[in-house]
């Protein structure tokens, strides 16, 4: 894949997923910059499109539906009970999907879905980005970094679920580690988690939550220390705040 094809693909569907596109992304710094810009734009776009849903909409829809069916039955609608049964069946069927989605609403599950979805190609990146890019991403999220950790190969301001985040990839010797920072969201308690073959950790750091995801936990302690230094400064890190 050449730059022209890649840019065309990027403008058509920024969820770059093909192997050829990933290879090109890894080898071409200019297209990587273009990808980062496109991704930032997509974040703005998806956030803007997600207009607030009126409170109680689903309840009103269900209530109106059931009320309407009862009225129809009362006025002699012969198959009213079938419609009611159908309504219940549809609610049940759609409810199954809803429960599946609801179970994916936790921070760990949102991160796993995000990292393994459109962001998966980024795990292959190994060339470090400029420290200014990392600093700018945090600044844009309203977070000041006391220092910028080295070894970030990818950084983007990603919306994850309803949360604005800074999403990074930090390649280590044997694996890439996805590191996401959720500004102004404070997890109640630090925890390690496992989803399939992936292991993660969510921990409160400064005024937000740091989430790491990788195939094993070997780098988590060191990276947590590094990001505490960067986000809280060395003094707070030495005192320990996990």
């Amino acid at each position, binding site marked *: 894949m050449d730059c*022209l094809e890649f*840019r*065309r693909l990027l*403008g*058509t*569907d920024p969820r770059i997923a093909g192997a050829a596109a990933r290879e090109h992304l890894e080898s071409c710094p200019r297209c990587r910059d273009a990808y980062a810009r496109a991704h930032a*734009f*997509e974040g*703005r*776009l*998806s*956030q*803007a*499109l*997600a*207009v607030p*849903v*009126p409170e109680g*909409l*689903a309840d*009103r*829809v*269900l209530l*109106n*539906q059931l009320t*309407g069916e009862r009225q129809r039955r009362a006025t002699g609608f012969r198959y009213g009970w079938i*419609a009611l049964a*159908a*309504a219940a*069946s*549809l*609610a049940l*069927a*759609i*409810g*199954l*999907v*809803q429960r599946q*989605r*609801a179970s994916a609403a936790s921070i760990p599950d949102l991160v796993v879905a995000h990292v393994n979805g459109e962001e998966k190609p980024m795990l292959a990146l190994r060339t470090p980005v400029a420290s200014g890019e990392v600093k700018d991403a945090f600044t*844009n999220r*309203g977070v000041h970094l006391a220092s910028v950790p080295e070894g970030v190969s990818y950084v983007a301001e990603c919306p994850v679920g309803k949360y*604005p985040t800074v999403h990074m990839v930090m390649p280590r010797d044997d694996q890439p580690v996805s590191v996401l920072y959720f500004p102004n969201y404070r997890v109640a308690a630090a925890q390690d988690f496992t989803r399939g073959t992936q292991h993660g950790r969510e921990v409160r750091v400064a005024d937000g939550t740091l989430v790491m995801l990788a195939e094993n936990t070997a780098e988590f302690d060191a990276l947590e220390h590094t990001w505490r230094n960067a986000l809280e400064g060395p003094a707070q890190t030495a005192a320990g705040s996990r």
Partner: protein
Amino acid sequence: MRAHSGELYRYAYWLSGDSALAQDLVQETFLRAWRSLDALRETVAAKAWLTTILRREHARLYERKPMPTTDLADLDISDTGPSPERTGEDAVMRAAIAKLEPKYREPLVLQVLGGFSCDEIARQLGITEAAVMTQVFRARQKLKSMLEGEEREAEIYGLP
């Protein structure tokens, strides 16, 4: 149903540009869905199925009603409030999206909000996949042009 009602409402909002109409469309969509339950072959296809019903209802009831638009210069993007940059950015972006022609806005909304592939969008809209690809590309180009004055990338990359 709650997850679907929210997604459908947003889709309806970007079709009609009006919150009240969007809520009516969601209501009507579920009404029709309940009456046509046997058309739902598999639960995983519920979103696409409901989206198709909603599109048809919008076309039947409201398509002639133009989308209300706001001049970018008239937006309040003051620097006060909890996250002014986010609020201001969203308002500017929403105004720009509202200015897109429906043929550009609709496939873009289906792709970004609905998560549908170009192929799936093509089937829903009854156009070719190539046309969808061109429209979503041009939709982004027009938005960037409105927001940032970026150069016309479609011409550079040789899209029709």
